[in-house]
């Protein structure tokens, strides 16, 4: 399967290069001006729309956008490497949330179930570590597995804090991501792209209903004991903004994880192999890169980020929806974010996520309920879809990043 670069666009761009260089800045300035004008107008209509109102909306946008960015990274990494829209990523996010929930609130399962889950997770991680040939010998693997299970069983009676739950659920979803790849996608390497997309949809349905089967079928409160869910107030222009410490935690954790991921992708052997695979899997294979391991690692990393996002999502909103629908909207919106930013590009996913967060929260703040106008809050779920459709039709390469769409 060859993906060609769009040469037609580059050739015609030569004459307009000066305009092309200025255009993004121009568009940005115009948009900012419009926003400022709209804010001033709203303030003149109603004194309630003051600096604090917009500051609150902005920090909430940043918080939501960071979460989208974390999920979008999983989409964009997988798409960059195997050109697959991993429809099941939203459900991986859902499983991450529930795994964390059970880790900090105690599981309702009997210990044999916990044992099996711990063993599966441990096996999956040792499998991953085996990629680096540090655990080559079966006897080492076996001993490590036994030790891990013993620790897991010992921990089963302990209730974790939010950080422990987050790390634990990152391990769970990491293994889940690798398993999905192994079971549903790996047998289809080289098949038409639509076949893999259909299995991705099937896996996503499987996980939704598995969640109903194994976790719960109703909305679940998600309140781990944490300092960060406590209130935080600050002053903007003499008015108080009410928020929680999550507005600090979420961007900070996102920044940390993105930094770690970037280092991993740019500085390590694995990262180099990932970049090589995403450019040309065939050649990378010939150069000695184990492409299947690289893909499995990609799924592992993306799914771990999804779990981190899921835990912070639950803490931000205080509850998680029932498994069949919890993952769908965040998942598809994060995919939209990845597309907006430019799918296949890591900075693009972060930019797209933040942009979508602002689109959803700040735009609704810019068009609130004033007088006869009922506001646009009810429409905010459609923004992601509409933005994605527009971006795909007008500029399939997204804001940054190259065009990876199939060409004729």
């Amino acid at each position: 399967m060859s993906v060609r670069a769009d040469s037609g666009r580059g050739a015609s761009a030569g004459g307009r290069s000066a305009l092309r260089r200025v255009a993004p800045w121009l568009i940005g300035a115009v948009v900012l001006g419009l926003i400022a004008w709209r804010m001033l107008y709203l303030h003149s209509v109603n004194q309630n729309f003051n600096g604090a109102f917009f500051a609150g909306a902005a920090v909430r946008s940043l918080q939501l956008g960071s979460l989208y960015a974390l999920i979008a990274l999983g989409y964009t990494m997988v798409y960059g490497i195997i050109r697959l829209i991993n429809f099941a990523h939203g459900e991986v996010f859902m499983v991450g949330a529930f795994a964390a929930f059970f880790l900090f609130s105690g599981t309702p399962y009997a210990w044999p179930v916990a044992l099996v889950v711990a063993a599966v997770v441990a096996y999956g991680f040792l499998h991953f570590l085996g990629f680096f040939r540090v655990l080559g010998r079966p006897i080492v693997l076996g001993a490590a597995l036994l030790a891990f299970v013993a620790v897991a069983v010992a921990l089963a009676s302990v209730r974790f804090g939010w950080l422990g739950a987050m790390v634990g659920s990152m391990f769970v979803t990491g293994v889940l991501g690798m398993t999905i790849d192994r079971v549903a996608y790996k047998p289809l390497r080289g098949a038409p792209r639509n076949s893999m997309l259909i299995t991705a949809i099937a896996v996503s349905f499987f996980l939704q209903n598995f969640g109903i089967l194994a976790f719960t079928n109703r909305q679940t409160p998600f309140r781990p004991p944490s300092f960060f869910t406590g209130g935080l107030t600050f002053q903007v222009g003499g008015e108080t903004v009410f928020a929680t410490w999550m507005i600090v935690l979420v961007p900070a954790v996102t920044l940390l994880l993105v930094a770690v991921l970037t280092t991993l992708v740019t500085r390590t052997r694995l990262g180099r192999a990932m970049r090589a695979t995403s450019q040309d899997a065939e050649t990378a294979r010939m150069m000695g890169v184990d492409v299947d391991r690289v893909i499995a690692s990609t799924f592992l990393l993306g799914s771990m980020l999804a779990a981190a996002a899921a835990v912070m999502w639950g803490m931000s909103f205080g509850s998680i929806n029932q498994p069949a629908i919890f993952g769908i909207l965040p998942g598809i919106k994060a995919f939209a974010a990845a597309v907006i930013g430019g799918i296949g590009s890591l900075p693009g996913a972060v930019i797209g996520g933040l942009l979508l967060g602002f689109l959803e929260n700040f735009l609704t703040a810019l068009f609130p309920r004033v007088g006869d106008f009922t506001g646009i809050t009810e429409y905010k779920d459609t923004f992601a879809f509409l933005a994605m459709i527009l971006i795909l039709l007008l500029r399939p390469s997204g804001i940054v990043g190259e065009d990876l769409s199939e060409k004729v």
Partner: protein
Amino acid sequence: MPGTPDYGPRGVMLRRLLNVAAVVALVIVLFFVQSSGSVKLGQVFALFAIWAIATVSLNLINGVTGILSLGHHGFMLIGGYVTGLLMLPESARANLSFSARNSLSDFAIGLSVERWMNALGLDFLAAPETIGVRFVIAALLGGLLAAVFGLVVGFPSLRLRGDYLAVVTFAFGEVIRLLASTPLMASYTNGALGFAGVPSQFGKSVWWTFGALAITVFVFARLKKGSYGRALQGIREDEIAAEAMGVNIAYHKVLAFIISAFFAGVAGGLWVSWVGTARLDLFLFTLTFYFLVAISVGGTGSITGALIGTVLVVWVRQYGDPLEQAYPLSTWLVAAGVVLVAAGALGWLYRRNRRLRPVANPFVIGAAVVGVLAALLAWSGLLETQLASRWQGFGMRAIALSVLLVVIMIFKPAGIMGRREFQWTWLLRDRKDVPTEEERRQDAWLHRGGDAAAGGAEE
């Protein structure tokens, strides 16, 4: 498609006779279902016909043209809401307009085929006896509006392809559903509440639904066999080559979306009538997923396959509730063990047929061992107290269908039927193209060394 078999003059007569006989047989079966079968059986048959219309129409895009479209539930929603609103009886309209939670506008409440007929002076078409005619009008209007949206959704197919296009169709389907619940459209859809009281004698009648299905199958079979269908199949196989051969790609793709959306709209109207209410949760993405399962299992691009797949999906949906009852955990454990052992056995058979070595790979051994252990654990009574509690298997049907879809996509991506259609020659071995012994030997010589790619209509 390897050409239609040559029946000869006697064969054509025979085929026509067989077609008539099959239709008569179907009518007799439907008659018995209607008269002596249970109410549920009739409803299952009707549901099969409704979903089959949607599946066959989706297959025109997904199977014949090779575009993965995931927005079919959106088209069905449009057709369903239009049909439902136009067919609401006066009593339901009065209830709605007095209800405090109603958000339908007066204009929307006035949208009624019956009132239009009265206004046009066609009183005989507003009488209770001619409600069938009004339903046909309403369903056609629903289909037409859906077709307009099909046109809108079809346009991105000119710029995008593959998975990007799939995502755009999905996004369109979701946007239609999300917009229907917003204040913008609530004056027509009544928001999340929807409206009840849609006449259900059409959607639940096997005659109406199978009549619509017969028309659909006829239209799509003609489409597929004609030059239009061949152009679409050309697009699926190789778009550049098709364009070079003079196929107008844009026209054909957009028309495929329009036709498909029209029939999806009609199916949506029947579906709303089958349920009796127009609600948003009738038109979730799950619906498209079911059709996708039906197409993939039955055979992408085959109408016969789509029908077979729909039988399976409707059967699982309507008769699969034993899977979701509460049973003791030991029963579940035994069931899981049986499933695992069966999976191991199937894997073993598969690997043996494909001459893969080792035949018993880790998956086969693991599945068999774990399955046997689970069954033994349940039987031995070691954990009797832990396993006595009952557990309800919510969502088992969807899990079964999604596992089936993954397995089909991995091991038999073309589905049961591939692209073949049902032909009478399967039953009657009067083909003239049966190879002679000499030809057989020549074929064997030509294909020595194994030819896995030989598919098509030959057996």
